[in-house]
């Protein structure tokens, strides 16, 4: 059994006493070094989960435990040291007047000495392939570049978990690819848990486990393969299914017995090849 890192215990949340529940009795666990995708329609409570993990919001009922610490006023600053977040809008999280100032911001907040900051700035900017933009101002960067700087800023303070809260939603396909490449590099190199909150099916397929939210509750929790096997149900709750999964289903309708739920082109072609040899 892997080590638990984040735990939601019967968490409920609403933005005011008169407001409807945004999260209603939500429980789940996320393990060390795991990559989890959280999906769900807009308003399903995904982003609220992210903010609760970082103590930007507190639950009305239930408990959130991060690395053994309950998220409350006493521990919130320790929690924030361990949980890094990248938000949706690339502009509204860029604090510094240049790339290097922005990467430094989080480290300055933690009182990290100047020499150490300089070292880490070079290091993290290289890991997101932005080392050539040290002194560039934010309005000269593309959305994808700004988000990579945001990721670098989080990595610079060495958190244990990185949350991407719809970090690619406002980017064009090229920006999205840049981010996904960066993120999988990081996942491969660092020992860090990743939580990606997203609509992008490509991102979901890359995760080890998917938590599906619907109307404030956990609708399902499984591997991407098992989740995408439930196509009709997913569509009913407003979500999309990858093209390959849809095609595999249609092939089954045509008496081609696809056994494993394929997630990418190669897997489906492989299945077809096996079938074809048997024909």
């Amino acid at each position, binding site marked *: 059994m892997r080590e638990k890192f984040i735990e939601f215990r019967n968490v409920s949340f609403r933005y005011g006493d008169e407001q409807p529940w945004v999260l209603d009795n939500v429980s789940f666990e996320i393990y060390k070094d795991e990559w989890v995708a959280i999906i769900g329609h807009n308003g399903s409570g995904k982003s609220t989960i992210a903010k609760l993990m970082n103590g930007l919001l507190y639950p009305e009922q239930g408990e959130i435990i991060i690395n053994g610490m309950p998220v409350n006023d006493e521990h919130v600053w320790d929690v924030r040291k361990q949980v890094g977040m990248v938000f949706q809008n690339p502009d509204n999280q860029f604090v510094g007047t240049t790339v290097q100032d922005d990467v430094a911001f989080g480290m300055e907040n933690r009182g990290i000495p100047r020499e150490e900051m300089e070292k880490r700035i070079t290091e993290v900017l290289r890991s997101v392939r932005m080392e050539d933009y040290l002194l560039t101002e934010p309005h000269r960067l593309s959305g994808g570049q700004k988000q990579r700087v945001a990721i670098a800023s989080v990595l610079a303070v060495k958190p244990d978990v990185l949350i991407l809260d719809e970090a690619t939603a406002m980017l064009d*396909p*090229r920006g999205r690819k840049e981010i996904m490449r960066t993120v999988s590099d990081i996942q491969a190199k660092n020992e860090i848990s990743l939580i990606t909150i997203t609509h992008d099916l490509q991102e979901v397929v890359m995760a080890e486990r998917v938590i599906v939210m619907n109307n404030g509750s956990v609708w399902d929790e499984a591997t991407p393969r098992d989740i995408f096997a439930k196509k009709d149900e997913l569509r009913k709750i407003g*979500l999309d299914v990858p*093209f390959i999964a849809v095609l595999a289903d249609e092939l089954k309708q045509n008496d081609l017995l696809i056994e494993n739920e394929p997630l990418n*082109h190669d897997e489906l072609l492989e299945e077809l090849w096996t079938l074809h040899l048997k*024909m």
Partner: protein
Amino acid sequence: MDITFKDVTYIYQANSPFAHKALENLSFHIPSGSFVAVIGHTGSGKSTLIQHLNGLITPTEGTVQIGDYQINSDKKPENLKELRSRVGVVFQYPEHQLFDETVAKDIAFGPKNFGVSESEIQRRIKEIVPAVGLDEALLGRSPFDLSGGQMRRVAIAGVLAVKPEILVLDEPTAGLDPRGQREIMDMFSNLHKEQGLTTVLVTHSMEDAVKYADHVIIMNKGTKYMEGTPEEVFTQREALNKVQLDVPEMIQFINAFEERFGKTIPFKRQTVQALAKEIQQALKGAGSDE
């Protein structure tokens, strides 16, 4: 209304050290009633292109012809306002333009500016609000109390209420969830057919271009890189990959299938259902060959 660009060049901040060529010698013709998808990376000139369509900017060189309105470097049409009432633009994140006290007033803002009578505006609101998937009960609410998806629909209703003949859509579904995206695009598609609009869709989604457009223009670095029907354009994988654009996923799969099995399945914008049948037949054929 037909749209014709003839050798259009547009330079931002011309004659300054910051001069930047956004469009270069761009020519194309869009016949009235088409549904055109304009595709290209950020910075390829798409946004500059669409700002020419209702005279927000005038070409530095060349001519833009929208129906009877001609726009070129030395003359803006005198009846610019009339042109803008006939060309509706839904900008990216259009909910950022909402400002009035109530949803109804905000939707009425455009038609009012263009001199549509109060009774006609009320009639149009009744018609458009359900069409964009909004509840009439929201009409009296402040637009700022609505959810993001609802705000988007209000902003779109505000453009549609002017009853434009040309509808320009700049990534109208960005930031919506998959269901919202589908609903909005289907709504535009129906509107296009029912009202015989000319629709110009700027998008990053190859899938949307295949699904809705009958003509595709690919922009690259301020110039027209490719143009044609979706079938013609999207089957040229190498040319598209050269400017780092992907082909729609169905074509990617058809190509991969061909490589693996040596069987060609032509792309004709078929449904996934039809494709499955064709694959089955191709495999059968392949099986019986041996």
